[in-house]
C-alpha cells in the first residue's frame, strides 16, 4: 500500500495563501506541511523529501522590484540543484499567483528548462483585481493537475498576471507542446481577449501553463479559492436552484480537483 503523498506548501517573506492552500492539499488527501522559505534554504527541510512542491499566492517581498523576482532569486541561489532534480524526477510543482510569478522567474518553464522566456507582468488595466473568471482547460495538455477538468470558475487576485512570451516562435512551440493549459474564456467558452473576461490581457488568453513534461504548473487563478462550494460568489444562488431541482448541494468546490489530481498522481506514481 502506498503512503500518503507529501506536499510542501511554502511560506514566508510575504507569501500569504499558505493556510488555505495547505488546507486544500489536506482535503485532497495529502500530508501537507507549511514550510518557511528560510527553513528550506538553510537545509532544515529538504525539498527532495516531498512529492509535491507548492509555492502559494501572496506578495513575496511586497512585489517590490517586480513580483516574484527576489523570492525566485533566493530559490535559485540556494536550492537550484535540488529543484532541478525534483522536477526531473517527475515530482509535481505548483505555483499559484505569486507562486506562478516566482516559478516562472526560476526559468523552469523555459524551453531549455532553465532560461526564462515567458513572463507575467502588469495587467493591462494597470491595477490589482479580485474577481471570478471562467476558464477552459486544454483537454490535450499533458498537465497532471488539470486532467478531467473542462470549464471551471475560479477567482483571480493579482496585479501582475499578464502572460507575455519572448517571441512568436516560442509561443508557437508552447502551443504545439500544449503547454498553455488553461485559457480565460467568454460566456460562450471562447478564448477571451477583452477585459474583464480576460482580466489582464494575457497572450493566448493564457491563465495557466505547464512545462513540457506537464509536472510543473503555473496558475494565476487560485484553485484553493474554490476548494469549497460555498466559496463561489454565486453560492447562495446555485444552492437555491439545486435545492428546487431536488439535487444535492455539493460541499467541495471545483478548484479542489486540481489538488486531487496532484495528490492522486503523486500517490499512484511517487509515494
Amino acid at each position, binding site marked *: 500500500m502506498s503512503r500518503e503523498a507529501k506536499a510542501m506548501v511554502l511560506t*514566508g*517573506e*510575504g507569501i*500569504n*495563501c499558505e*493556510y*488555505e492552500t495547505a*488546507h*486544500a492539499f489536506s482535503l485532497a488527501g495529502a500530508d501537507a506541511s507549511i514550510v*518557511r522559505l*528560510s527553513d528550506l534554504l538553510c537545509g532544515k527541510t529538504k525539498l527532495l523529501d516531498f512529492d509535491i512542491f507548492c509555492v502559494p499566492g*501572496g*506578495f513575496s*517581498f*511586497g*512585489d*517590490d*522590484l*517586480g513580483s516574484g*523576482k*527576489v523570492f525566485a*532569486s*533566493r530559490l535559485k*541561489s540556494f536550492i537550484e540543484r535540488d529543484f532541478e532534480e525534483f522536477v526531473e524526477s517527475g515530482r509535481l510543482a505548483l505555483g499559484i499567483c505569486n507562486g506562478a510569478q516566482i516559478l516562472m522567474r526560476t526559468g523552469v518553464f523555459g524551453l531549455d528548462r532553465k532560461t526564462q*522566456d*515567458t*513572463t507575467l*507582468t*502588469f495587467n*493591462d*488595466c*494597470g*491595477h*490589482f*483585481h*479580485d*474577481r*471570478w473568471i471562467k476558464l477552459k482547460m486544454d483537454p490535450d495538455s499533458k498537465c497532471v493537475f488539470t486532467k478531467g477538468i473542462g470549464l471551471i470558475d475560479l477567482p483571480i*487576485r493579482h496585479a501582475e498576471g*499578464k502572460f*507575455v*512570451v*519572448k517571441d512568436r516562435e516560442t509561443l508557437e512551440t508552447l502551443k504545439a507542446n500544449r503547454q498553455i493549459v488553461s485559457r480565460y474564456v467568454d460566456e460562450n467558452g471562447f478564448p477571451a481577449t477583452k477585459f*474583464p473576461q480576460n482580466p489582464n*490581457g494575457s497572450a493566448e488568453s493564457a491563465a495557466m501553463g505547464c512545462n513540457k513534461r506537464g509536472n510543473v504548473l503555473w496558475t494565476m487563478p487560485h484553485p484553493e*479559492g474554490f*476548494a*469549497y462550494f*460555498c*466559496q463561489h*460568489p*454565486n*453560492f*447562495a*444562488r446555485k*444552492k*437555491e*436552484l439545486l435545492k*428546487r431541482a431536488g439535487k444535492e*448541494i455539493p460541499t467541495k468546490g471545483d478548484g479542489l480537483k486540481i489538488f486531487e489530481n496532484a495528490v492522486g498522481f503523486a500517490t499512484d506514481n511517487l509515494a
Partner: protein
Amino acid sequence: MDSFLDANQSFIQVGFRQASTDALGEKMKKDAFEDLGTTGIQDVKTAKMYSIDFALSNEQLEQVTSKILADPVNETYSINTQLEIPDGFDWMIRVGFKPGVTDNEGKTALLAIKDLLKIEADKKSKVYTSTLYMLKTKDMKEKDIENIASNLLANKLIQYIKVTDLKDWDKKSGLEYMPRAGSNDPVLAKEINLQVSDSQLTDISRKGTLSLNLKEMKLIADHFTDPAVFEERSKLGLGKNPTDVELEVLAQTWSEHCKHKIFNANVEYTGPDGKTQEINSIFNTYIKKSTDIIGSEKDFLVSVFSDNAGIVKFDDTYNIAMKVETHNSPSAKDPYGGAITGVNGCHRDIMGVGIGAKLIGTTDVLCFADPFYDKPLPPGNKVLHPRRIMKGVMKGIEDAGNKTGVPTVNGAMIFDNCFLGKPLVYCGTLGLISKTVAGKPSEDKSINVGDKIVMVGGKIGKDGIHGATFSSETLTEASPSSAVQIGDPITQKKAYDFLLKARDLGLYNAITDNGAGGLSSSVGEIAEISGGCIFHLDRAPLKYEGLQPWEILISESQERMTVSVPVEKLDEFTALAKEHEVEATVLGEFNASGKMHALYDGKTVSLLDMEFLHNGVPKMHLKARWQPTKRGEPADALETDFGTALKKLLSALNICSKEKFVRPLDHEVQGGSVGKPFVGVENDGPADAAVLRPVLDSFEGIIVSNGIIPQYSLIDTYHMSANAIDEAIRGVIAVGGDLDEIAFNDNFCWPSPLEDEKKMGDLVRANQALFDYTVAFGTPCISGKDSMTIDTVFSDENGNLQKVSGIPTLLISAMAKMKDIRLAVTMDAKVEGDLVYVIGKTKNELGASEYYKMHGLVGDNVPRVDAQTAKKLYNALSDATSKSLVASLHDCSQGGLAVTLAETAFSGGLGIESDLAMVPAASFLTDEQVLFSESAGRFVATVDPKNRYEFEDALAGNCFACIGRVVETPVLKVKGLNGNDAICESLSDLKRAWQSTLGAV
C-alpha cells in the same frame, strides 16, 4: 563633485522594452485624463531608477540588474546612463521620496543585492528608488507637466519631484537622486522651563504640537516643582522642570487621542425639555453601562473595553476579536500613506490584543467629499481634491490589506461635502485567537518584574512624530508633515508571522502595538501591569542617525510591537526572530518602581511617576445643550416621474455601485470568504454584509456589517445613532444572521465640541440613543474609539480663518457568529415566479433622506427606530432564514423601497412586478413617500411560492406583505396607489444608472 562620477554610487534604470505594453504608463495617461482632464498626453513610458549609495563593481551591477531587477522577457535597462528616450518624447517627470520617507522598494532592492552578491552591506548602505515618467505630449507647457506631477503622481509633502524639458536634456542630470536622511545635530535631552507666564505655557504647547491646554500645562509645571518629586529626580541629575522627553510623553499620554478626555468629562447637559442634568463621563454613563447591563445576560463576552480590541467567544476552541480605528488626519495630508498606516495600524491592535490574535478580515468605511467637486478648493493648496483623497485612500487600503494577506471583507463609502477638509477613514479588523495559548487564557496579558522589554519589527525614524497630538488637533496649514508616513506591509507581515510563532511557543508574556505615541504609549501602558519600567532609548534601532531621545520615544514609525519576554526565554525569542529575519531589540526591563525611567547613553532623560502619567490628567468640564431645529416638510410632491427619479437616486453617490473601487481589494485571501461584497447573477449586486469562515475545518462563520448614516445628524444625532445601530443589525439579519449573536464596535467622529455646546449636545444625544437601542436590542458594544476633531481650518483669500467641519458621524460595526454559513442568504432575486415581500412598516420618514437630498431639502421627519417591533421582526426573520425559507433578502436603507426593489431585481437579472397598495405602510402616504421613505426596520424578500405558508407562519405577528412577483421580463414595474404604473423601467437602464456614476468596472 558630479555624482555621476562618484565611484561609490551607481544608478540603474529599468524600463519596458519598446515592443512591450507599459501598463503603468497607460494607466497614468488614463488617470491624467480622468482626474485632471489632461488631453495633451500622447504616450507615456515609465521606468524605475535605483540609486545605489555604496560601491559596486560594473560586473556586480550587471549581475544584479540582469538577474533580479530587469525581467529578461519584457524589460530593458541601463547602468549609469539614462535609458534610451524614445523619439518625440518631450518631458520627463521623476518622482522619488524626500529624505527619511519610507522607501520599501529601496529596502527590498538592498536586500536582494546583498542576497545575490552575498555581500554584507553596512548600516549606511542604502538604495533609493524613484520613478521616471517620459511623456510625449502635444501643446503642453511646463506648468501643465508640473500640475500632473504634483496633483497626480506625487505628494510634495513626502515626495520629491523633478520635471525636465527633454529638449535641453543633459543625460547626466538625470542621475543624481540620492535622498540621504539623518542629521548631525547633537543628540541630547533638554530641560523645558515651565516656570513661565500662562501665555508662554500656551505657546510652548502650541509650537511643540503638544495639544496640552493651559490647565494641563500648569498642572505639569506644578508637578515637577513638588518637593518630593524634585528630590527623587535630583538624585538622577534632573531639575525642577520636565525634560523635553518627559513633556512629550505626557503630551502623548494625555492627548485626546489616547485619553478620550471628552468622553470622560463631566458634562452639564441641557436637553430639549430645558432640564439640565450632570453626566459624569459619557463613556461610563451610556456605552459602558449598556454593555454592563447586556453583559449580565450574555455568555459570549470575553474582554470588553479593556484592551486593544474587544473579544467575544466564537466556538469551543476560538475567540474572535474586533477593533475599528480611524486615521482621518493623516489621510487628509497623504491619503495613500494615511490609509495604509490606518489599516496596518488597526491590524496591530489585533496583533496586540490579549496575547496576540490572527488577522482574519478588514472592514473599511470611508467618508469623502464629492469626487466630482468642481468649486475652488480652500486656498493654500493644503486641502487635496476629494477625488485624489479617495483614490489615494483606496490604494492605501489595497496595499495594506492585500500585501499582508488580510481580506478586506466589506465596507462602505459615504459622500458629503462636509468631509472636504478631512475625510473619515475608518479601519476595522477582526482577529481569531485560541481560547488558551501556551496553557494560559489568551485574553490575559501578564508581566513579571524582570521581564525584558523587547521591540519587534520596524526601525524608528522621524515619521509619525506627533501623530497622537496632531490627530487631536484641528488640521491647519502648519500641521507637521512628519506626522505623515508610509507603511511597510511586508515588514509588518514578517513580524506578524514571527510573533504568532513565538506566541504559540509561549516565548513572551505580554504584547501590545506601537501606535499613537510610539514606545511612550506601548511601554508606558503595559508597564502598568508590573508597575514600572526602565529602558534605554539609545538601544532602539534607527532608520537613520540623528534622532533626539524624545523623537525615539514618541515616533510612530510603523510595524512595531512591544513584547515582554521572560529572561529565560530571551535567547530562544531572539534566535527565532533572527531566523525570521525580523528585528527584535531588548530595550530594558519591566519593574515595580512606579516610574517610567528612560535613559539615553546611560543618562536619565525621563523619570515619570506612572501614577501621574496615567491618572494625572485633569478631568474636563463641558457644557452641552440641544434643541431641535424645525425646517418643515415639503407640502407637495417633488416629482411626478418616479422612474426617472429612481434612476437619479440609483446614481447618487451614496447609493451607486462602488465596485470599481472595491475590486482592487482582495476580499478572498485566507479562503474563508462566503458572503462577498458583490453578489448576484453577474456578481455585481450590493451585498448587505460579509460572511466569512475563519476556520476552514468548520462551517461556523462570522458576519460583518456596518451601519453609518451621518446625514441624519442634520436633524437629530439621537436618530442618527439609532439608525446606524439598526442598519448594522439589518445587515446581519439580511444575510441570515441572528440578533442574539451580535456585538458592536462604536466609533465616533465628531467636530470639536470643546467650545461648542450644540456639538457637545449632539454627542450626548447620540450616546443616549446608543444606550437606549443597544440595551433594547441586547447588542453590546465591546470596543470603541473616537476622533473628536474632524475640523479643518484654513485662511481664505482675505486672510480670514475659515473652518470646514464634518458632521457628527457614528459608525456602528457589527459582527455576529453564524452557526452554519451554508445557510447564508444573498440579496438578488433568484427564480422567476417567486413572491416579493416587503417586511417592516413604511412611514412618512423622508427627513434627511437621499431623496430629499437630491432635491436640496433636509426636512424634519427623520426615520425613528421602533426597537421593540424591530426586535420581534428580526428574530422572526432569523427563524425564516435558518429554515431556508427565503430565496433572497435585502436590507432597505438609503433611497428607500424603490432602490431596494431595483437592486433586488437587477442583481438577479430578473424583473419584479409589484403594487404599492400592498406595501404595509402608515395611512395617507403618497406614492413618493412609500417609494422613497427611509423608515428603519425594513427588508425586501423573495420567497419560493412553495414556501409561502411556512414563511408567513414564521413571520406571523409582524408587519409584512406580499407585494408582487419575480418575473422573467427584465423590467421593474411598480403599480402606484392609484393603479397606474408608478415605475416601469428596464433593468438595464436601472443598472446602468447605478453603475455609471463611479464608472462601470
